[in-house]
């Protein structure tokens, strides 16, 4: 049946959405190419069908209408519609697959606060998606800049205290706090710091907020 290949893409996108901690699956270049090939075959067939229909209608001495489809014999109309349906279905599946992935890239960029995608996710993108991710991150960052005093991508969690305790998971090197002091964040060390200085690092996974 037409569109069986394309359906694989839709199933894959659906699985990726449903998976816990949902992230991006590897861009399925092979199947996408196959779907495009099927589309090409259908389109070529369709041109042939259209030519046959036009010819049949032109040759028909009893035809008085300009409505080619209405004047064509039912069998040709059926062929046309079958190919048309196949083309539309493949197109829809392709678009939905790519749209779902792009939505995911957008969501990830917001979650990570305008930083680019982490390398293991970027690796799973197609070149076009990676370019989009880069540009979108830039766009988000400049959008955030417009509202300078409010961090639009900060954790939407009302703070309970000014200072929090954090443990370092991944080495961050030296950071500068809002008050101008410097802090060395070496792996496995624990610090009592101002919340606003380290929120971003917690969401990005470098630190862990300890109770």
């Amino acid at each position, binding site marked *: *049946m*037409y*569109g069986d290949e394309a*359906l694989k893409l*839709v*199933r894959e*996108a*659906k699985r990726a*959405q449903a998976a*816990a*901690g*949902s*992230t991006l699956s590897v861009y399925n270049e092979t199947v996408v190419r196959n779907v495009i090939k099927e589309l090409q075959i259908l389109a070529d067939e369709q041109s042939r069908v259209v030519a046959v229909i036009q010819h049949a209608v032109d040759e028909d001495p009893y035809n008085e209408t300009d409505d080619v489809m*209405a004047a064509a014999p*039912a*069998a040709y*109309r*059926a*062929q046309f*519609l*079958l190919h*048309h*349906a*196949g083309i*539309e*279905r493949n197109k*829809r*599946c392709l*678009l*939905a697959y790519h*749209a*779902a992935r792009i939505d995911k890239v957008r*969501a*990830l960029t917001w*979650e*990570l606060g305008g930083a680019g995608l*982490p390398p293991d*996710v970027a690796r799973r993108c197609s070149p076009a998606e990676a370019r989009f991710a880069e540009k979108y991150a830039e766009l988000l960052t400049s959008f955030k800049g417009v509202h300078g005093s409010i961090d639009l991508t900060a*954790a*939407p*969690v*009302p*703070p*309970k*205290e000014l200072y*929090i305790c954090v*443990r*370092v*998971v991944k080495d961050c090197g030296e950071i500068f706090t809002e008050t101008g002091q410097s802090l060395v964040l070496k792996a*496995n060390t624990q610090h009592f710091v101002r*919340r606003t200085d380290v*929120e971003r690092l*917690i*969401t*990005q*996974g470098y630190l*862990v*907020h*300890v*109770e």
Partner: protein
Amino acid sequence: MSWTARPLTDVDYYDLDGILAEQQCLPATFQVHIPGMGYLDGTEENEDILEGTKIPLPVWLIDTLNTDHEMLVETDLPKALTEAVLRHLRASASKVNLQALCPYYFMVAEKLQHMAEGTLPTTTGDTIAQAFQDRLKAVMDHTQTRLEEHTSEFVQGLDMVERDILKRGQDASLQVKRWAMRTPARIRRAPALGMGDADAYGRPGRGGRQG
């Protein structure tokens, strides 16, 4: 059944579930002879489709073949919507395994209800709507526990819409628990980073939700 086309909105077009639901096949009888398209029956046996040929066709294909102007195929109800199944639903809705009958049971039923306007018995819609309500009570009960997720026969029998409701209910339930334990104040590592590394205390990664 008669057939009425309905234009897709943007939201529907990209909906992955909508695409998968339309893959459901209906028994279809061709009303015209179509040369050269015999391969649609999935075999190599027939060159042409003859008038009266019966082939199960997906809903998306039937949608294009049947228009307000003409019906190129006559369709029948799928097995999932026959009187036998409906009787079962009236008797004990929660015991019916909808996943096995049709993973997108309610979406398909709704589509057919619209498409076959007037030719489906009115009781069909009522029965299915009632069954949904009855099953919903049991689904909501299950949202209070996570334990039975993979083992319960009832949960295995839920269709995709019901599963989505179950998952959302379980997530909501978890959020309430977290709120009660005052954990919302804790900043979390972005879910986008996935289940990844163990945290600083060596506990396995839990890409938890913020807040």
